[in-house]
């Protein structure tokens, strides 16, 4: 029983799907953010798997950049969440109807 790349890819697909479903069904903005992190991790796992399968370091370099962008995204996103929640406390994703026409 050898452990080839498709195992990792299947696991990454499952992780990505769980994150996507969580992003669709949850109302809490923080938990939705965590689901985005799950999806990013699934993609990172895919990149590392392809880097190993193809013997290419570029996949790992790309994961490095994804990590940086994810950190920046989390910082700005949590800042937005703090600002919004201060304005109307206990806001879920359903309460943010500022852009409704």
């Amino acid at each position: 029983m050898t452990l080839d790349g498709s195992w990792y890819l299947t696991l990454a697909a499952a992780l990505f799907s769980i994150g996507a479903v969580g992003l669709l069904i949850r109302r809490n903005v923080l938990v939705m953010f965590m689901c985005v992190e799950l999806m990013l991790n699934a993609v990172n796992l895919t990149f590392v798997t392809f880097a190993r399968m193809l013997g290419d370091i570029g996949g790992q370099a790309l994961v490095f950049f994804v990590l940086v962008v994810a950190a920046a995204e989390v910082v700005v996103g949590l800042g937005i969440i703090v600002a919004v929640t201060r304005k109307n406390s206990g806001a879920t994703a359903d309460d943010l109807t500022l852009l409704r026409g």
Partner: protein
Amino acid sequence: MTSALLLAAASKVDVAVFVVSAIAILAGALGVILSRNPVHSALMLVMTLFGVAVLFVAQEAHFLAAVQVIVYAGAIVVLFLFVIMLLGVDRLENLEVEPLKGQRPIAIFLGLAAMAQLVFLGGAQWASGAPAVAGAAEGEGGNVATLARVLFTRYLYAFELTSLLLVIAVVGAVLLSRRQTGPETQTGPETQTGPETQTGPETQTGPASDTDTGATTGVEGAPVP
């Protein structure tokens, strides 16, 4: 003979490591989306991130595994927990009610469809490409040196741009999370402190600047040396 035995043992260990971390990853991911308390979600996220770090090690991405633990589990999850504590949103969410009719079955169906597509693509060995375009995965000095070499030569401009991105993120976070206590209470002190300190002399310099420049230099100080 012995090498074949060693290979079989190593592959068994690899499979065991993969299975254990896969269980941790999937359980953590399900815990993130199913737990009612956001704090529990964040802790479950830590479990998933550690599992992914273990799989990075298993695929010989040692530097990324360390960065994954430091940045994700050490910084991002702590940031999540800080925001949870700061906002006091650690109350339970009722998951039984479904605010939008039929949202959950559709979401689960979409998730399963996406997973079926991804598994099909991943398992069908369509993942092809030219090997080692950006550089070989294994070079001298191990994974860290190889990754550093390609980051500081081929992807140097992208690497420098990430520093710009981080600066922008820091400025944005400070700007967004600055305490703004509503528009009416914020403009109140500003318009109060404005007339008290500034417009008092300014209304003096307004008429005075037409006739006498000495008064303006007394107030402003800058224009005349």
